[in-house]
């Protein structure tokens, strides 16, 4: 979830009322974001990804104003139509575009900072790191129409932002920091997307803007381009940007996209209406609400509404793209009502609690082994082939491997547990012996017939480590263990390189192998740098 820092002076000015630290914290967390920290000049919030309209200080101020019912003169956003057209060619690598002109901006340091901030957060979240949505903001007065959006060859030239010299697009990708970061989003295409005006390329989405149209403190009018792979997402990003600027009194100007014979007006600030079922709303929250209550609660979350019998028609503002279903609106009504104003109520639902049989068995196993003096350990299911196989002196087998491991210590899932316990012995050599330890835990085996092509199985494994530990002691534990579970068993000699040859056995019950035990091979002990003999046992819990 994005952590965003807001300038409190700017926020107060936009809200139009001074709020104390506590009051600010309270109202913000009642709306939704979590407050991470607050100083005299800044407030840092954890904003949930469903509310990108709160990523900017202007949107946050609007939400606070609505919640506290603070009147403001800007009831509707200022907007006009312009005659400007953008000729849009088909650019398969980035097919969708949206754009807007925003006039009368007054770009103080604070405003420029917040504009850059929100761009960054939008890129990282709904933009999916510029892949799905990329935003460019330009000084409109530096652009000389006609404007076009098209795919061009990689030898086309521009002066990228923060550079002085002309470069080919190929050179931008190779030599500029942004080119190196985002070039891979388009490099596979033959033609690369650019915006051009009478003087040439002024934007190269999703990579970089041009130096020529750089936004400065002197900029009075903005041109915003948004390109991407998902039409709804680019419109959402643009709407959030322009409605935020409109909160500062700027004027939004619509322009026309010429797509072959068709044309389209952008930005698309049309409000949508969703129908909320009145009785369903009351049933879901568990309170009865008057019409007046509902309309007021909705208003405090920024919705206007009309009630028609059992239907509430709720107008969704253009910056709220998270509303998929009436439950999304109902949540906002509940938040406006206040979760702490609802009385928690346990319903009369009679059910019987029950432990898993498997877990009950595991509890008994733990009691038994603890009674025999074993210390319980808990280990990770993630492991690596070096520990699972090489250090155990056994050949590598097919296990569940991780495609994108974070660390070379955790690249696969364990298929047996003895390596986990050997690892514990190896890091506790300075601790008093005997070290008798065990774990009851999961292993995952490849099993192609299963839905997930694998099987998660519960096992119990123990090691006995001291200067005189041997086969007989392990057998004593195994025998006591199985007798207590009423299991008749027989033994078979077991040849496996992790054990000393001739000092290991398989445990058979009902013609099934349920486990094994033996003296761990000195080569294995040497691999783990363990200096006392170790006897071990490992059994399948599901067979007990």
């Amino acid at each position, binding site marked *: 979830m994005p952590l965003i820092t807001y300038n409190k002076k700017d926020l107060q000015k936009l809200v139009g009322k001074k709020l104390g630290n506590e009051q600010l914290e309270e109202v913000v967390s009642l709306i939704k974001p979590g407050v991470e920290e607050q100083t005299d000049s800044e407030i840092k919030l954890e904003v949930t990804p469903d509310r990108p309209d709160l990523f900017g200080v202007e949107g946050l101020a609007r939400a606070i104003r609505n919640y506290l019912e603070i009147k403001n003169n800007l009831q509707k956003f200022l907007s006009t139509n312009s005659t400007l057209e953008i000729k849009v060619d088909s650019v398969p690598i980035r097919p969708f575009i949206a754009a807007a002109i925003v006039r009368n901006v007054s770009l103080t340091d604070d405003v420029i900072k917040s504009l850059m901030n929100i761009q960054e957060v939008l890129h990282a979240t709904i933009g*999916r790191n510029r892949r799905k949505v990329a935003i460019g903001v330009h000084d409109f007065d530096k652009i000389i129409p006609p404007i076009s959006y098209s795919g061009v060859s990689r030898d086309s030239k521009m002066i990228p932002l923060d550079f002085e010299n002309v470069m080919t697009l190929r050179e931008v990708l190779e030599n500029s920091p942004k080119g190196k970061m985002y070039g891979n989003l388009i490099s596979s295409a033959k033609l690369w997307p650019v915006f051009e005006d009478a003087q040439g390329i002024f934007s190269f989405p999703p990579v970089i803007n041009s130096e020529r149209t750089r936004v400065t403190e002197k900029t009075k009018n903005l041109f915003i381009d948004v390109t991407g792979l998902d039409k709804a997402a680019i419109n959402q990003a643009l709407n959030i940007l322009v409605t935020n600027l409109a909160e500062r009194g700027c004027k939004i100007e619509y322009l026309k996209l010429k797509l072959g014979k068709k044309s389209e007006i952008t930005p698309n600030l049309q409000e949508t209406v969703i129908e909320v079922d009145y009785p369903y709303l009351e049933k879901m929250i568990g309170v009865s609400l008057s019409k007046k209550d509902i309309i007021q609660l909705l208003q405090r979350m920024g919705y206007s509404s009309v009630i028609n019998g059992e239907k509430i028609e709720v107008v969704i503002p253009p910056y709220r793209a998270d509303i998929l279903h009436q439950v999304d609106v109902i949540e906002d009504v509940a938040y406006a009502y206040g979760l702490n104003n609802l009385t*928690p109520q346990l319903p009369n639902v009679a059910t019987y*609690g029950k432990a898993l049989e498997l*877990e009950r068995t595991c509890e008994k196993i733990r009691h038994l082994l603890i009674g025999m003096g074993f210390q319980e350990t808990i*280990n990770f299911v993630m492991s690596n082939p070096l520990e699972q196989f090489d250090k155990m002196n056994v050949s590598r087998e097919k296990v569940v491997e991780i*495609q994108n491991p974070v660390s070379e210590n955790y690249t696969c899932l364990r298929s047996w547990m003895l390596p986990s316990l050997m690892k514990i012995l190896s890091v506790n050599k300075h601790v008093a012996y005997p070290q008798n330890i065990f774990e009851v835990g999961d292993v995952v085996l490849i099993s192609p017939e299963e839905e997930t092509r694998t099987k998660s199985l519960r096992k119990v494994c123990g090691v006995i480590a001291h200067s005189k530990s041997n086969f007989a002691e392990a057998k004593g534990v195994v025998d006591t263990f199985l007798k207590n579970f009423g299991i008749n068993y027989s033994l078979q000699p077991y040849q496996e390189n992790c054990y000393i040859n001739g000092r290991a056995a398989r445990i058979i019950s009902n013609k099934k192998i349920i486990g094994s035990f033996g003296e761990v091979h000195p080569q294995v002990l040497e691999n783990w740098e363990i200096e006392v003999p170790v006897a071990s046992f490992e059994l399948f819990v599901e067979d007990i």
Partner: protein
Amino acid sequence: MTNYRLTKEGEEYRKNGLPEKNLFELLQKDQLSVNNIQKKMKHADIALLWLKKKKIIQEKNGEIFLVSKKMEFPEQDALEKISKGETVNPDILEVLFQRKLVQRIYEEVEKLSKQLEKKKVSELTPIMLKTGLWKKAKLAPININVAPQKIVSVGKSHPYRQVIDDIRKKLIGLGFVEARGPLVEMNFWNFDALFMPSDHPARGIHDVLNVKNSQDGKVLDKQLWGRVEATHENGWITGSRGWGSWDFSFAKKLLLRSQGTALSARTLSKLKKEDIPHKMFMIDRVFRSDVIDAKHLAEFDQCEGIVVGEGLNLKNLLGYLKEIVIAVTGAEKVRFKPSYFPFTEPSVEGLAYHPELGWVEIGGSGIFRPEVTLPLGIEVPVLAWGLGIGRLAMIKLGVNDIRYLYSDNLKWLREKSLVK
């Protein structure tokens, strides 16, 4: 029970053989000089004395040899029998008594009795208890500051297990049925069935660990997959707008389960009408693409549950969340705040009041979206909740490094006191 017991000498002969028997066996092999006999065995003089008395050896030119190659030693058997408390032939017993190989017990008791009158003793012994002599015994006091005897191998459960087991029992007490699901999971159950869109950020390689196997998961219920597809595409009959797209091939891919909610989806898909109302919980592993440090683990346990029932509402959700948080943390005050989960609406975070830490976020919850429940075949509301048990366990164990929960530090495990 006999009144006799073996003396120290008698016990030695019982174990190692009577000297005369041992000598007889030596001489069976060859004749020997007295000097040689003395070199070869203990108690040679006693042996010679008794074999001579029984007239089965003779001496010639300094060499001792057997007169008869056969000889029985009933005394040997008798020693064995006496040690086991069995009765023996009185004639043989008399011989053994004369040889001071046995003694009457009362003699020992008299001796002990005299001793006990004379001085304090340090230990209470079985013979004192058997004979009642403990009444005469004056047991010397012990310095209670004596160093405790070291008990190295104390069997104990893992501190984190104690926390987990405690929570399990409380949830079972609240009427929840325990469940378990696969650690390797299909994207479908982990995300798609929970109405998380194919391009949701939480599905990226920076968040989840994918499985590197050639095979995709198996589609078992084609109709269910169809309903989930339609819901993602256009909302199906759920009243939702949907996401406008769905990636079938992505849904089939395998990953390491990243959220326990996958099991809630599985549970709901199997629930029949007659199983409702139903309450389920699990405490089990999930995996994330995180670098391990004091605050993060790539593998940890989640505690999640659902309540399925007719007419459940937001107030009931708060009721359960409060009850669960109070049961599990022992907190007296609980507060709620808005939250966000991709699969619940409304969503609520529960905070518990801790006397030292203040308000601590302890559990997330919500009502499953209709886009989640309807495709799974559930037409009643489903309340879902999850507890941050890692955080809770850290508070209970008084540690500030989450790695302690899976600690390989044996010393710490041995010394850590039991969890309250």
